[in-house]
Structure formats: C-alpha cells, structure tokens
C-alpha cells in the first residue's frame, strides 16, 4: 500500500517541525471554518495557495484529491441556490436562483478547498509516525496516540492478509455480484481478517510485555525547532491576525 504520497519531498514544509505545523494548521482550520461571507474565506484561500507554492506537492494527485473532496460541495451547489430563502433572485430560464444562496454555496466552496489545501501542505507533508510523535509532545493522551501508532503500523499487515484471502477467493472462482452469496463471502472475508487481527493482537501484546510495555511508548527521539520554523509560524499567525482584523 502506497499511502503517504504527499510526504515524499524536500521542500521547506516537508522539513519543518511537525509540532509547529500542527499548531498552525489547527489555528488556521478553526479560523477558516468559522469565517463567513466571501472575502474572509478568500484571504484564507490565498494563504493556502501560498503554502502550496512552498510545498511543491504532486499536482496531479492534488487535483484528484480536490475533485473527490468537492463531491459533497457539488451536491450543495445542486440544491442550495434553488432552495435558499433569500430576497433577490436571478432568473435563469426556468430556474429561479437565490442570490444569497449562490453566495452561501460559494463561501462553503472556498472554505472547504482552503482547508483541504492546508491539510495537504501542513499535515500530509509529514509522515504519519512523525505526526503521532508530535501529538505526544502536544499532550494528546498517551493511550490514544499508542492506539493510533499500532493501528497505523498494522494497516499494511492486515491489508496483505486481505489480499491473500482475496486471491484465495478468486482462485476458487469468486466473482462479486449483487447476490446474497457475494455478501456472505465478503462477510466471511472480513470475519477472517478480524480473527487474524485478534490472534495477532495477542501475540503483539505478549511481545510488548516482554519488552516492558506499561501502556505507552516512551519518547526516544526529539524534534529540533529551526529558526526558519519559528519565523514561518510567526508570519502565519500575523497573517491570521491581519485577516481577522480585516473581516
């Protein structure tokens, strides 16, 4: 499984301290999600675009992610402009489009895409394990981070198990259709995966106990904040304050 596709790179944001990136990202997404109107979200969108220029991520992959994320937004565009109870209307053939409804849909679209760009450039540019490591530094409960760490570590293992069972099923002539037999087969595949997971978990726990596990993984390596990371965070916060004052 090739999962962390955006984390491959060597830009400034790929190398920046994940702790600061998480803090900037949390602040950004809360401010952006709570903004209203068109102008303020647009400012946040420009900030995300700037990050995109710095991060230099794979553009084709970026577009495919944006298209998927905008699926729900398309849904909103389909319903809102005709159903919104605003005063002024634009008549477009047989359609009566509410001006406020259009504004509202546009606002949602900008906010959604601004936050997705920030997620890709600030979070996805770090590896999942370094994000988990940073979460411990940021005082996220240890038990939650430990569960998250093992969960991510074993996704690839369970995926390999799934592929094995799938190959075994297709060797026996299984072709998925809309039939009860198909659903039963999928259920047994999932059941098989769950049982393997139970057994693996017991083995892993014993192995962890042998190594002195007491409910969490102690931190071994530590991050080092560079001067440029601090400058980046300060610039970002100043930008957020300016946008906040302007709106």
């Amino acid at each position, binding site marked *: 499984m090739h*999962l*962390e596709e955006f984390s491959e790179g060597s830009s400034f944001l790929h190398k920046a301290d994940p702790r600061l990136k998480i803090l900037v990202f949390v602040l950004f*997404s*809360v401010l*952006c999600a*709570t903004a209203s109107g068109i102008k303020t*979200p647009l400012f946040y969108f420009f900030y995300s675009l700037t990050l995109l220029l710095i991060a230099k991520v794979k553009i084709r992959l970026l577009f495919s992610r944006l298209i998927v*994320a*905008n699926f*729900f937004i398309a*849904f*909103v565009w389909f*319903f*809102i402009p005709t159903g*919104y*109870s605003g005063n002024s209307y634009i008549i477009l053939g047989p359609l009566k489009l509410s001006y406020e409804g259009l504004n509202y849909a546009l*606002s*949602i*679209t900008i*906010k*959604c895409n601004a*936050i*997705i760009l920030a*997620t*890709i450039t600030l*979070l*996805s540019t770090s590896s999942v394990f370094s*994000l988990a490591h940073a979460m411990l530094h940021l005082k996220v409960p240890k038990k*939650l981070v*430990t*569960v*998250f*760490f*093992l*969960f*991510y570590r*074993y*996704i690839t293992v*369970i995926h390999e198990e*799934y592929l094995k069972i799938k190959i075994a099923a297709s060797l026996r002539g299984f072709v998925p259709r809309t039939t*009860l037999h*198909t*659903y039963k087969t*999928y*259920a*047994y*595949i*999932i*059941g098989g*995966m*769950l*049982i*393997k*997971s*139970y057994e*693996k*978990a017991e083995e892993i*726990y014993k192995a962890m106990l042998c190594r002195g*596990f007491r*409910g969490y993984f102690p931190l071994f390596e530590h991050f080092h904040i560079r001067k440029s990371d601090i400058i980046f965070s300060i610039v970002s916060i100043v930008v957020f304050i300016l946008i906040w004052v302007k709106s």
Partner: protein
Amino acid sequence: MHISEGVLSVPVLVSGAVLSVVGLTIGLHKIKNENIPKVAILSSAFFIASLIHIPLGPASAHLVLNGLVGILLGWAAFPSIFIALLLQTVLFQFGGFTTLGINTFSMAMPGVFSYYIFRGLLHRGKNIVFLGGFLGGALALVVAAAFISLALVITEKSFTAVAGTFFIMHLPVSIIEGIITGFVVVYLKKVKPEALG
C-alpha cells in the same frame, strides 16, 4: 460517510467536538492496557474493510461497519473511529479536521447503541445471532445518517433537501451493512465465540 470542511455552522461543530471528547474519554478509560493492541489492530481491520467496495446493482457501496465496531468494541468504538477518521484526513483528505468531532460522534454513538441493544441477542441460536447482527449493523448506519442529516438541517434550513437526499441514499446501503454485519457475527460465533464477549 463524511461531511466536508467548511459546511457546518460553529455551534454544530462545537457540540460535535464536545460530545466526541466525552465519548473518547469514556472509550479510552474503558481500554485496559492489555486491550490496547486489540483495539488498535481491530481498527486496522475495520479500516481495510471500509476500503472494500461491495456491488449493489449497477453501482457499488463501501462499507462503514460502525455497527460492527460498536458491537465488538463498545465504548472503545469512539477512539477506534476517531483514529480512522484522523488518518483519512491526513492521508486522503476525506472529511476534515474541524468536522472530526461531529463525524466521530455521528458514527461511534450509534455503534455504542448497537452494543447495548443487540449484544444480548448474540448469545442465542444462529438465526437470532444473525438478526442481532443485521439490526445492529443496519440501524447503526441509519442513525449515523440521521445524525449527519440533522447536523446539516440545524446548520441551515435550506439544507433540508440535501440532508433528505443524503439520508435516503444511505437506506439501501444500510441493508447491505446489516446483511454483512449479520454474517460476520454468525461467522465469529462459529469460529471464535469469545470475540463476542
């Protein structure tokens, strides 16, 4: 099943976050140290299972399995679903950060309901076990879709049409979810009955 970033209003996002923090606190409290690997690796299995596309007529649906997560993990469904959503946000940008709270609550809470309501049926004969799994799986998804639709309508009255369509789209999927959950619990009952507690 996710709500994208930037759609929901601030009160809805905040209530979702608060409710999820409560659920997460209870869930984490209930996970004993020796169960940490079990919760984590079952979550990995659910994550992989949710990537499977099940044929449904000309289209296909992907599984959510929040009912099954609830039946097997109880309150630990909160951390389990939370970490899966967090990972999806980081890796695939599905859902999002500010919606983590409302999305976690909408999916995990119905799972916990299924745990309390239908777990008793899993110690009976084969047909009752299937029925328990079917109802637990199907209703957990229906209630989750209802929570999300409700979040949309509270945000903005003119979302009613969107929310209604979203809810109705999930009804056929919930039947598939129910059938699969039913067969999974029957299988577990046969092969590893201690998994059902």
